[in-house]
């Protein structure tokens, strides 16, 4: 398998809360596919196959990361950051997560927002990394949503049976001529990205439309390292 040392994206989740809503104690989505490694096709021409392959690649890379038992926090941080960049459309996610205010933001504000957003995301995943052990992923079907998205469904189950299984929908962005990447995750009918967007927009509106207010609030959430 072609596993870049670390490429596992757990997931987008700007909010760890959604993970734990469905699986108490489970704050991140990484699954271990028991004995299953899905190689990424060299050239995926079919939209659905390509989207499915992205999800499978994510799972494989997460598995690889989980197998590294004695990695330092810094190594894990680097690994998770690399996973996000490799498998998630981070710039598009950042733009969507601020709704209509992205267009009005200055280039400096956009860059700073992307930086703090990523930092908080990585820190959240890192803080809940141990919750990922023991998860098994079962792939479902891939459903195209127009020519821009494919929704790939799946189920996470706890191999120990301690936690209830969770249904997940991966929204993969599949625009022509652009890299096929993960964009959103729905857990039991809750879109992590839509939730984050609505929360971000609320913060900006409470602060009279100031984009920088959102950056300040998110920056305060970055834990000291």
């Amino acid at each position, binding site marked *: 398998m072609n596993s870049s040392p670390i490429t596992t994206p757990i997931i987008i989740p700007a909010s760890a809360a959604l993970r*734990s809503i469905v699986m108490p104690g489970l704050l991140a989505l990484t699954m271990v596919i028991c004995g299953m490694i899905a190689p990424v096709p060299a050239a995926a021409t079919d939209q659905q196959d390509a989207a499915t392959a992205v999800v499978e690649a994510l799972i494989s890379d997460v598995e690889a990361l989980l197998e590294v038992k004695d990695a330092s926090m810094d190594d894990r941080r680097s690994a998770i950051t690399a996973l996000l960049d490799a498998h998630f459309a981070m710039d598009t996610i950042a733009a969507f997560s601020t709704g209509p205010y992205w267009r009005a933001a200055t280039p400096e504000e956009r860059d700073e927002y992307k930086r703090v957003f990523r930092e908080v995301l990585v820190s959240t995943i890192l803080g809940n990394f141990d919750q990922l052990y023991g998860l098994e992923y079962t792939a479902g079907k891939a459903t195209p949503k127009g020519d821009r998205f494919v929704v790939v469904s799946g189920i996470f189950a706890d191999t120990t049976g301690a936690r*209830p299984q969770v249904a997940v929908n991966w929204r993969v962005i599949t*625009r022509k001529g652009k890299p096929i990447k993960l964009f959103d995750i729905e*857990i039991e009918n809750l879109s992590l990205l839509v939730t984050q967007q609505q929360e971000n927009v609320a913060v900006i*509106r409470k602060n009279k439309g100031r984009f920088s207010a959102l950056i300040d609030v998110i920056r305060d959430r970055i834990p000291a390292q």
Partner: protein
Amino acid sequence: MLGNGMMNRQRYMPGDSLSGDKAIPAAFAPDQGSVAGDSRANHAPSVNRLATKAAIVGMACLMAACSTTPPDERTDERDTFENANRSIYDFNMKADTYVLEPAADLYRSSVPEGGQRAVDQHLRWAAMPSTAINSTLQGKFENAGLATLNFLVNGLTLGFADLTNDEDTIEQEDFGQTLAAYKTPQGPYVMMPLLGPRTGRALAGNVVDFAMNPLRVFGSGKEVRALRQAQAPVGAVSFRAKTFDAFNEVKYNAIDPYARTRSFYYQTRLGLLEDRVTGASTTSEDAFEFLFDE
């Protein structure tokens, strides 16, 4: 929750203790129905009576005394009474901090898993009449049949044990969903004291669901009354315990917990209204359209 490995997997909102006609008094509690059990014969003050009064007072304040929040001050255009809603949310969070959160923490650490599961099953069973009736009203006869069967069979144990062996998933239906099916306008978003978020339509539906509590309709006697009065507070604690970490994540770490709660409520409610079974995407494609406007 989702199945627990149980044969009769029942669809409900994440963390939902599943009682269609019982109010879960928490600011994050999904729409669960009206406050349970209010015996006229019992003159002693009760949590249920308090919650009912709180609901009535809260609605009266919102609808009659509270002015709408000007559109340019709202963080969501659907939140007509946002200023008042946020105040009530703050009150609910204080109540959660001092009462519900410690109770839930104690519950999950001291009640065995089997006991917790029995409580969940009972609450789920108590919602079956509402699901059966509302499914019928919506023309979902298969779901109505499954709910009826589940209610009758598990009635032998008052729902504390699930005796069915049915692989089908019963979709939770309540009168608010029935109203939606008949195109009743959604109404404003309201944060109810102790009961949590509702839309006007869902709140009206809760009143009807309240009347469908099987213990209210069929039960009599001191034990049944006690069980009925315990349903709401126990249901609240059970729900809070099941969603303990997630709830606390929102409460303590969200950049705007109120907004996040509102978002969760609308998405979850939409999933129920559109009968989104587990695994089916809820998010409308329209939500992403603006991304592609260049």
